[in-house]
Each structure stands twice: as structure tokens, then as C-alpha cells.
């Protein structure tokens, strides 16, 4: 096992705008990286370049010391020892579940007892041992997904790629599958790269999250880190819930802001200070009469609490949670216990 290195990776399909530009990323051995971004940001293209389906226009991909791809040529996918779970699952409809799972072994010339044992083991690990003789068409969406996963597992690949694997599943199944992916990662020890546009999913499964937008890599960090300290407005808006306030702020000061610091920013009148973007998470907004004035715009009951949309006196929007109901138009005071300068 070794590190997977993307070096200044670029891809231009000749459409005038590069799909991926100069993405550099080290994925540590056994890491679980989620590649997150809105649709069309180039994340799937990066994944397909790692798999070897697309050739980079520039830059290179290395697995440890081994060069996998550059603009001059590639190691074809069939020689990479990687595996992938496709969005459409890509199960072969003419083979049984067991044959689907065992195909990578068959190609490698493994047969007989060892073949059966490995296929059985892989099906066991996704709790489908009883389904080996069925056809993929007879399975539910979640079961098909698990067959695709078992097919990845069976050859102990160096790198496992997952392309929006939960996009076609309902919400209940998603949570179950997220758990399965985490288990799978812990057991296999393979390096995993997971493409998704759903930030909650990315943070739930991965050990690292890389955020992409318009072909560029914006930030890479652990889920907790990227949630607490996002870089820039794009990442701040993409990860977690929150509102971004624009307040005059001295950029040399610390980026973690408490209520004292924030209140002084609200009261600042010095026009010479440039404005900065401050991210405020809803759980850090406390309704309290001693805070600054705000008006309730809407209140949605979410079960465990109310989600409020507020408007400050200067028109800026803010989000908050509340245990008590509120009506649109209510006047409240808010204390912002924590903010983060983007």
C-alpha cells in the first residue's frame, strides 16, 4: 500500500473551459477521502482519471512510486488493481450475484475452492450470503449496491472509488449504507475515494473531505476541521448550515470570534475598515433579550426544534434554532456566541 498522489492534475475536453484545473492532492494510505462539490464541478472527472477511464491533459497521477497517468499515456484501468462502485451499480444483468462478485477473481485466474471461499466471504460481509444464486434484477436498490460493494471487496484492491453511490437510494437506506461504507473501510484498509454532492453524506463517511468547485480544489481537511474552519465563502456556504454575514473586520485579527468581538463589529462605524465574511452556524445563535435586534422571517418545525430565519436590522439574514415556537414578524434579540471569518 502506498500514497495516491494527484499532481497538478488537469483535464480539458476541448469545450473552452477546463473540466479540472491543476488539482494537487495527496491521499494517505488507507485514507477515506470524500470529493465534494456541486454537480459539474469536475469531481467525477477526477475520479475517472484516477480509475484510468480518462487521460489527464496535464499533470500526473502516482500510486506511491508508480506513475499511473500523465499527458503522455496511462496504465489502463484493467492493470491498476482498483475497484469502483458506479452510480448505476453496473452489475452485469446476465450473471448471477455470485458470478458478478466473483468476476474479478475469474479474470485473475482464481478458481475452485479459493474462488468459492472468497466470493462467500465477500457476500457475507455485505450480508447477502443467501442471495448468491439470484439475478441482479431480482434485488432491491440497496441490495444491488451491496453486491457492487462486494465485487469491490473480493480482490482486496489498493484503491476503491465510489461515484455518488447513494444517489439512487431513499433516505432510510442511505443511512444504513453510510454505515456499511464505514465498516467496509475499517475492515479492508483500502484507500477509498468517494464522490458526492451531499455534504452531510461526505462528512458522515469520510476521514477527509476535499471540496471542489468549477474544476478547482478549494480545501482539504478532516470533516470536523472543515466544518469548524472552512476557507472562503464557497466552502463556508457548501459545508453545514449557516449564514454568512458581511461585517467590517480587521483581517489581521484572529478568525475565531466570540460574542464580545462580534458585538463590537456590529457597532463599528469606521467606514475605512473593509468588510469581511463571517460564518455563523445556527446552533451558535442564541435568542436572548440582551442581544442585538432581529425579526423572525420564518419558523419551520423540524421535530426536535424550530428552525428560524431571522433578519437583522441592517437587512442581513441569519439562521437560528429555537426550542420555542415563534411567529413570522416577531421581534427578538440574538446573541451570536461564535463566528468564523472565512
Amino acid at each position, binding site marked *: 500500500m502506498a500514497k495516491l498522489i494527484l499532481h497538478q492534475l488537469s483535464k480539458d475536453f476541448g469545450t473552452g473551459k477546463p473540466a479540472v484545473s491543476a488539482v494537487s492532492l495527496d491521499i494517505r494510505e488507507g485514507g477515506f477521502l470524500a470529493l465534494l462539490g456541486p454537480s459539474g464541478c469536475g469531481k467525477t472527472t477526477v475520479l475517472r482519471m484516477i480509475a*484510468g477511464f480518462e487521460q489527464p491533459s496535464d499533470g500526473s497521477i502516482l500510486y506511491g512510486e508508480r506513475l499511473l497517468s500523465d499527458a*503522455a499515456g496511462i496504465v489502463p484501468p484493467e492493470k491498476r488493481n482498483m475497484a469502483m462502485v*458506479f452510480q*448505476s451499480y*453496473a452489475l452485469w444483468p446476465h450473471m448471477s450475484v455470485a458470478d458478478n462478485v466473483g468476476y*474479478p477473481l475469474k479474470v485473475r485466474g482464481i478458481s475452485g475452492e479459493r474462488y468459492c471461499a472468497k466470493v462467500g466471504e465477500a457476500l457475507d460481509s455485505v450480508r447477502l450470503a443467501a442471495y448468491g444464486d439470484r439475478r441482479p434484477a431480482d434485488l432491491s436498490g440497496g441490495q444491488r449496491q451491496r453486491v457492487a460493494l462486494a465485487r469491490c471487496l473480493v*480482490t482486496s484492491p489498493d484503491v476503491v472509488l465510489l461515484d455518488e453511490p447513494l444517489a439512487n437510494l431513499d433516505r432510510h437506506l442511505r443511512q444504513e449504507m453510510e454505515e456499511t461504507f464505514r465498516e467496509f473501510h475499517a475492515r479492508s484498509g483500502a484507500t477509498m475515494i468517494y464522490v458526492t454532492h451531499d455534504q452531510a453524506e461526505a462528512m458522515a463517511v469520510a476521514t477527509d473531505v476535499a471540496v471542489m468547485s468549477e474544476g478547482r480544489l478549494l480545501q482539504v481537511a478532516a470533516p470536523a476541521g472543515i466544518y469548524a474552519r472552512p476557507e472562503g465563502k464557497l466552502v463556508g456556504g457548501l459545508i453545514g448550515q449557516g449564514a454568512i454575514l458581511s461585517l467590517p473586520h480587521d483581517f489581521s485579527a484572529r478568525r475565531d470570534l466570540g460574542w464580545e468581538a462580534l458585538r463590537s463589529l456590529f457597532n463599528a462605524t469606521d467606514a475605512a475598515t473593509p468588510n469581511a465574511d463571517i460564518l455563523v452556524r445556527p446552533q451558535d445563535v442564541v435568542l436572548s433579550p440582551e442581544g442585538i435586534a432581529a425579526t423572525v422571517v420564518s419558523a419551520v418545525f423540524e421535530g426536535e426544534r424550530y428552525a428560524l430565519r431571522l433578519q437583522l436590522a441592517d437587512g442581513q439574514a441569519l439562521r437560528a434554532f429555537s426550542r420555542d415556537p415563534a411567529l413570522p414578524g416577531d421581534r427578538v434579540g440574538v446573541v451570536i456566541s461564535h463566528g468564523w471569518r472565512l
Partner: protein
Amino acid sequence: MAVLRQKANSQPRWLFPFVVAVVFGLCVVPLLRLAYAGTQSLLRGDVGALLSDVSVWQAALNTLSTSLFGMLISVTVGGLFALALTLCDVRGKWLLSFLFMLPTMIPPQVTALAWIGMTGPSSPLLKMLSLAPPLGSPQPLYSIAGISLLLGVQHAPLVYLALRAGLMSLPRDGIEAAKLSGASPRQVLADIVLPLSVPGLIAGAAIAFVSGVGNFGIPAILGIPAQILTLPTLIYSRFASFGTSTFGDIAVLSGMIAVIAVVGLSIQERALKGRDYRLIGLSGSIATFRLGRLRPPVELLLWLLIAIMLVAPFLALLASALVPAYGVVLSLKSLTFGAFEEILFRQTVTRTAFANSLFLASAAAFGLLIIGVLTAYALTRGRGRLTGLLSAMIEIPYALPGIVVSVAFILVFAAPLPVLGVSIYGTIWIILAAYFASFFAVGLKPIISSFRQLDPALEEAARLSGAGFARRLFDIIVPLIAPAAGASVILVFLIACNELTVSALLWSAGTQTLGVVIYNLDDSGSFDLASALSVLVIAMVVVLMLLLELLAARLPKGVVPWRN
């Protein structure tokens, strides 16, 4: 660190050049050779003698008139069937459409024989019914009108198919909207349905015309005895009386056929211009008109037409095959299977023909399957600009009349092959090569549409599993496209087994095909044997079509030509 050479393409390096070579070898080189021979002949001035020959112009005129009249008949009959079977609540649609499609699949020379058996003074069928005209009266089909009529019957299904494809996409909501606007069924038909079906009708008419121009079997059997020559039969007779300037002459003559075909197609193109009615709306369910009290008469008319076009000729053919000699009245006493016995067990030439046709048809079907799978792979997976050009080139020999293709192949292979120094001229291999070129497009179409439906991820998953090109092809792709591949094999087999146009020019002693033998038997007066052989051929056609019918449920749309 090693230098990487391979590109991120799923095709092996040899595939694309291979496909380019096949397409050029089969579709481009022979036609260039034909054009070259024609130009040479022009430059030498041989053309003057040819063009001052009245019979050439007469043949060109005959070709034009028979094709045009045939086209009118095809459009009338095919249009009626398409409207009735697609839009109206006629009963027994499946059977009617299956029976109506049969004439296209039955070889034209067989159609001609069957109709001869149905009409004229010696018809065993008419004699049995005591309806035969007196002996010595002329066979009415040996005329321009007869040729036109049979061309019309033979190609009516082509109009039917083209029009039906257009009518199928006619959205029900469009017709319902017209009805809600207050239009009566008659007005809906006149204002909505007919204008929208014009493009399909034009396309069908063009196909019928071009097929008529290139048809050899019908004018050969009906025209040659009456000295009515069309361009294809003129080429055939020139070729039979091999002279010094033959090659140049037939090159120019087939050039004339090609020009008529191309002009026909470009008139179609112009007629279609400005008629690009992209149908908007949900085209899921097809509109259906209730015929009401008109239904029984319409159904009667359709069945009557089927009876005249198909059932009666076939019964006549059967009757001709079951009498001991042509002209004898068919009765229980005179009934004999002697003709079948003769062709199946005694005549070596028919047995050879069966063997040749079966070999040629299976070799063409399976050879084109292999070439087709590789070509479809290269064309659907490749991104280059060349792929569009290649697809267009594959269509050329199919669009051109078969006789043009055979002349082109004669010209290419008349001389010994370069490098090898062997000539395949006069052997069965030249027929096979011409079949490959002629039926490439037929065999490729089902496979390509199946490839287009395939989720690329299925193959990509196999690549990541470690499977190389050949392995993926056999384990994943071929099983997934198997129904379409089966359809392709049956279609090519069906057409190749029955064709006459290509082999009429390319056969020599020992390499006769079924089509050639039927023609020769009739030509030498053995009408009963020709009929018996035709009956067997029709039986084979029906069996193969039913086989395709069974496959149809598992095929992508549009693969089986008579189903939608």
C-alpha cells in the same frame, strides 16, 4: 520511472485501423474502381457508341417508368395499410402486418414466378378453377404494366414501414387537442394526421423508387421473355454476351443506375426540406380512430388485398409445383410431389445451390456479426470525427442497387489480387465479398443500436475488474447484445439466402445460388421445378421471420424491420 505509452481509450490499438481498412475495402475501393472504369471508358470515347444505342435509352426509359409506376402502387397500398393498421381499431393487426411484410422478404424472382402462375393461359390454379384464358392468349404480366405492378407489390411494405414510423410518433394529445377544438374525425385526418405523415410518405416513396430502379428479379423474369429490358437486365444480358468493351459498358450502365438512384434520393431530400415537423409533446400512446360502421368494410378490403397480393400467388405457386408439367390441371389424380423430389434428391444443381446459398448466407451472417461487433464498438466508443464519415460510407453500398455493387466487385476482382497473384473471380469468394459489402449496413444496424443502449459503466466495471479487451468482449458485451446479434445474423442470412441481383452477375458453374437456380430453371422452361424450389424458399423465409418475431421482445426498438 517507466514511460507510459497507452492512451485512455478502451479500444486496443489495432481496432480502429482494422475497421477503417474493412470499410474502405468493402465500401469505398470497389466504388472508386467503378468510377475509374467509367471515366476511362468516357475518355476513350467508347461511350459514344453505347449512348447512340437506342436500346440503352429504351432500357433507361423502361427503368424509369416501371420504377415510377411501381412507386405509385407501393405508395397507395403501403399508405393504406400504414394508416389502417397504425391509426385505426382494425382487428388482427399483428397477423395483417406480418403477412403484409412478407412480400419484401420473399425474393423478387419468386414473386414474379408466383404471379405468372396466377395469371396467363397455363396457370394451373386458374385451370383448376376453370378460369384460365384460352391457350395462345398473351401472358398479361409480360409488359411494362406487369413489371410495375409487381414492383409495386414487392416494395409496398417499404412505404408501409416508413410511413408507420412517422405515424407511431404522432402524439395522441395532438389529436385530442384537435378534437377538443371541435374538429370532426375527417377534419382531424385531413388537417393533422395527413400533413404530419407526409415526410414518412415521401421517404417511403423514395425507398420504393430506388428499390425499383435496382430490382433485377422481376424485370428479368417478366421483361426478358418479352424483350422489355431495364438497365439491370440490360447489364445482365450485355454481360452474358461478353464482348471486348463489356467492362467499360457495364461500368457506364451501372453508373446510370447509380445516377438515377441518387437523383431519386436527392429529390426526396428536397421534398423533405421545410417539412421537419419535430413532434412535440408526450408521444407515448398512439392515437386510435374508431372506425365504427366502417370497420368491417375496411377489414374486408385489407384481407382482400392480402389475398390478392400474397395468398393467391402463393397458392398458384404451390399448384404449379404440384402438377407433373406446367399447363396440366391440378386435381387429386394429377397431384404429384415429383418436382420436390427432383430438386431435393435428383438434380445436382439444386443441391449445389442449396449448399452454396446456405454457405454464403451463413458465412456472410457470421462474418458480418464479427465485423459488425468490432465496428460497432469502434464507432460507439470512439470520439473522432472519422466515426461519422465511416458510418456514412457503410451505408453507401446498401443504398445503391445491388447490381452496381456486383459490377464494382467484378471490376476489382477481375484481375488477380495484387501480392497474392490469385484471382477470386469466378469462385464463390467473390460472391461472398460482394455480400459482405451489400449487407454490411443491414447487419450492423441492430448491433449498433444495441451498443448505444448499453450503459458504458458495465464495461468500465469489467475493466476495473482486470478484464482486457477480448475478455470483456466475450464475457460482458457479447452476452449483453446477444438478442441484437441474433437478429443481425437472421436478417443477413434471410436476405443473403434469397438474393439474386448480386449473384446473377457473379456466379459461374458450380457457384450457383438459390436465386440464380430459380431464375435459370424458369429460363429453361422447368417452371414446375422453379415453383417447387420457390415454395421451399418461401417456407424458409416464413420460418426465419417467425424466429425473429420470437426474439423481438428482447430486442431494442426498430431492430426487427416489421415491428415498432
